[in-house]
């Protein structure tokens, strides 16, 4: 770091010459704090976490830039999972179900 700062993850000081990740408008974080941080998507069917840490697509899913709602392993493996997904959308986003409005 060229200037000192405060890590947005652990709230500890980052000193000059220490390694840190900085982004305009977001702030700075320790390198180790950034690697610990894993964004967790939400399962639209059960409402729980999607289990990104154990997801088979962990390395290929850019969780920061994808659509926020996913499905967890359990829900995706269940029978008629796509129908369950559609029902969950109908339930959670009633506005989209125009015929029923």
């Amino acid at each position, binding site marked *: 770091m060229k200037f000192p700062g405060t890590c947005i993850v652990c709230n500890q000081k980052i000193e000059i010459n220490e390694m840190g990740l900085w982004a305009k408008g977001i702030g700075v974080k320790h390198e180790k704090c950034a690697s610990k941080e894993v964004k967790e998507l939400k399962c639209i069917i059960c409402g729980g976490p999607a289990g990104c840490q154990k997801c088979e*697509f962990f390395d290929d899913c850019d969780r920061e830039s994808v659509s926020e709602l996913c499905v967890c392993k359990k829900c995706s493996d269940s029978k008629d999972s796509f129908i369950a997904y559609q029902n969950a959308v109908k339930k959670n986003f009633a506005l989209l179900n*125009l015929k029923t409005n």
Partner: protein
Amino acid sequence: MMWSEKHRPKKIIDMVGNEEARKSFVDWLVKWKKGAKPVLLVGPPGIGKTTLAQLAAKEFEYDLIGLNASDVRNKANIEEVLTPLLGNVTLLGKPMIFVDEVDGIHGRADFGGVEALIKILKEPTVPIILAANSAQSDKMKNIKKATKPIFLKPLPPRLLGLYLQKVLKEEGATLGPGATIKIIIESRGDIRSLLNMAQAHVTGFDPQTEKSFKTLNIDAAINAFFKAKSKEEAQVVLYSLRIDPREKINAFYSSIVSSNLQSKDLAKMLDIISEADMLYGKIMRTQEWRLLRYLDNILLRLYEENLPVQFSQYNLSWPLLNRLRWDGRTIKALGALLAKKFHVSQSTIATFYLPYILFCIKNKKLEMEFSPEYNEIIQKEIGLIK
């Protein structure tokens, strides 16, 4: 039929992913009244921006008037197309305007259209939906200010997988786990790409489906097109190859003219290429980019099973290219020498004099002395005179 068309959702609720964005969009449309800000759908290709606009028009019973970047490049064009719609709504039913790829207008392609569009966006009398792949450019900043941006994002891979399984089930098809995962990863959240790749894989077109067609080299794509086992496969390759249309036509042209084809086939194919070229010429002349949709349909007629066509970058055979390169240099130097002797320009020598000079030398009607380095080329050229 392309799966991406066949499985296009029928209702907004049937779409996959981007639930929050869809909700914001529907909310905007439900609350829409005269003067409300138009909406700007921003997101990468293949995630349903156009579908969302089309379905909204259908479900809210609007008459969708679709325009694309070409229609809004030109101020006069905008006024001609949009003013009647904005002026007297009742005569024209219930219009809704959809302008696709607004970020496609930039630099010299913009003939005052963006400014005229922004003016309209500030006082809308009908719902206006704009779509863009990105909202980063300076021109988009102004459009963004005048609209309500809604960001659509790529789908998470597992959700894509769920949708793919549903489509495969409906098609009565199966894919191995390895191929499924590869297709999901390579589609990068793009539903259209996902379905194109899956269809290509299921129909037995193996080698190139391992890659996204968007990243496929032009040479691999041309080879895949002519190696396709059916017209449908060729169509999948062609439709997914999104490169500059000029480049596309040139690649087909150079590959065809340098392949060993029978005269009859060659004539037929050149006829098709010239049709595609005329269409592109018309597009460039009139800036009617909506006509571009017909280009692939024309090029698809080039496909016939087992045609011995392979990609070639050069539109002349290698021996001829070689001769142009090396002999051309010597002929040019010879031309410069003769130009001095005959007191004319080099181009006049090359265009008009040289064939006659060679003819006269051949018939021993003219005697000229040349330095030995030109003897070989003169004899070669004389040999070519019939």
